[in-house]
C-alpha cells in the first residue's frame, strides 16, 4: 500500500536536487529550470497531503492549481529577464551578472 511518507520523501529528494542546481549552475536558464523543479516538489507535497489527510475536501489540489498558475507567470517573467540581461551583457553566465556589486 502506498504511504504518505513515500510521496513526502520523493518530494524532499526533488527539492534538494532543485536547490543543488539552483546554487551550482552557471547558466541562467538552468537556474530557472531548477526553480521549476523546486515548485514541482512543493506541489507534490500539497497533493500528497490533500489525498491522505484531506480527501473529502481537496483544498491541497486547489492550492496546487494556484501554484501552477503562479509558476507559469514566474517562468515567463524570469525568461524575459534572462533575455534582457543577455542582450545587455552578451552572456548567460551567472558569475558575470555583477551589476549590483558595489
Amino acid at each position: 500500500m502506498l504511504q504518505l511518507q513515500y510521496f513526502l520523501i520523493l518530494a524532499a529528494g526533488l527539492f534538494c536536487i532543485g536547490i543543488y542546481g539552483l546554487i551550482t549552475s552557471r547558466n541562467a536558464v538552468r537556474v530557472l529550470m531548477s526553480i521549476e523543479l523546486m515548485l514541482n516538489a512543493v506541489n507534490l507535497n500539497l497533493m500528497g497531503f490533500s489525498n491522505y489527510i484531506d480527501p473529502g475536501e481537496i483544498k491541497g489540489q486547489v492550492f496546487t492549481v494556484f501554484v501552477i498558475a503562479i509558476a507559469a507567470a514566474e517562468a515567463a517573467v524570469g525568461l524575459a529577464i534572462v533575455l534582457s540581461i543577455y542582450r545587455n551583457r552578451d552572456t548567460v553566465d551567472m558569475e558575470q551578472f555583477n551589476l549590483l556589486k558595489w
Partner: protein
Amino acid sequence: MQIAEGVQLVTFAILSVLMLGAALGVVLFANIVYSAFLLGGVFISMAGIYILLNADFVSAAQILVYVGAVNVLILFAIMLVNKREDFKPLKNGWIRQGSTAVVCAGLFALLSAVSIVTPWKISTLTPLASSVVPLAKHFFTDFLLPFELASVLLLMSMVGAIILARRDFMPDNISGETSTQDSLTLPERPRELAGK
C-alpha cells in the same frame, strides 16, 4: 483508485526513479538542450504521480501548463539565448559544489526523518471518484477572490514579460519624422540578423 495495490506500488517506483533520474539529468548535464527535454520528462512523470494520488484534473493541468507552456517557453528561451560559451572555471569552485551537496544531503535527511517520524493524521475517508466537480466548487465559492486575482496576475505578468523582452526603441527616430505607415507597429530598434 481502482488499480490493485501491487500495481500502484510498481507504478510509483517506476515513476519516482524516472523523475529523480531526469531531475538529476536536468541539473548535471552539460548540454542545456538535453536538460530542457529531461525537464519535460520530470513534468510528465509528476503528472503520473498525480494520477496515483487521485487527482485527474491537476494531472491534466500539469501536462497542459508545464509540458505545453513552460517547457516550450524554456526551449524558446534556450533557442534565443543560443550562445555556445565555455564558462571559465572558478577558482575554489569545488568548495561551493561540495558544500552545497553536503547541505542538500543534510536537508534531505532532515526532511525524510521528519516525514517518517511525524504521526500524520491519515484520514480514513475514501477518496473522491472525480476531483473536477469539488475543485470547481472551491474555485467559485470560497476561493473565488484568489482565482480572480490569479487571472489579473497572469495578465500583469504577460504585459511585464512583453515589455521586458522587447528590444529597446530608439528615441531619436520617434522625435524626428512622424511615420504614419507603420503606426501600428511597436517602435523598436531594427535587429541585426543572425546570419551575418
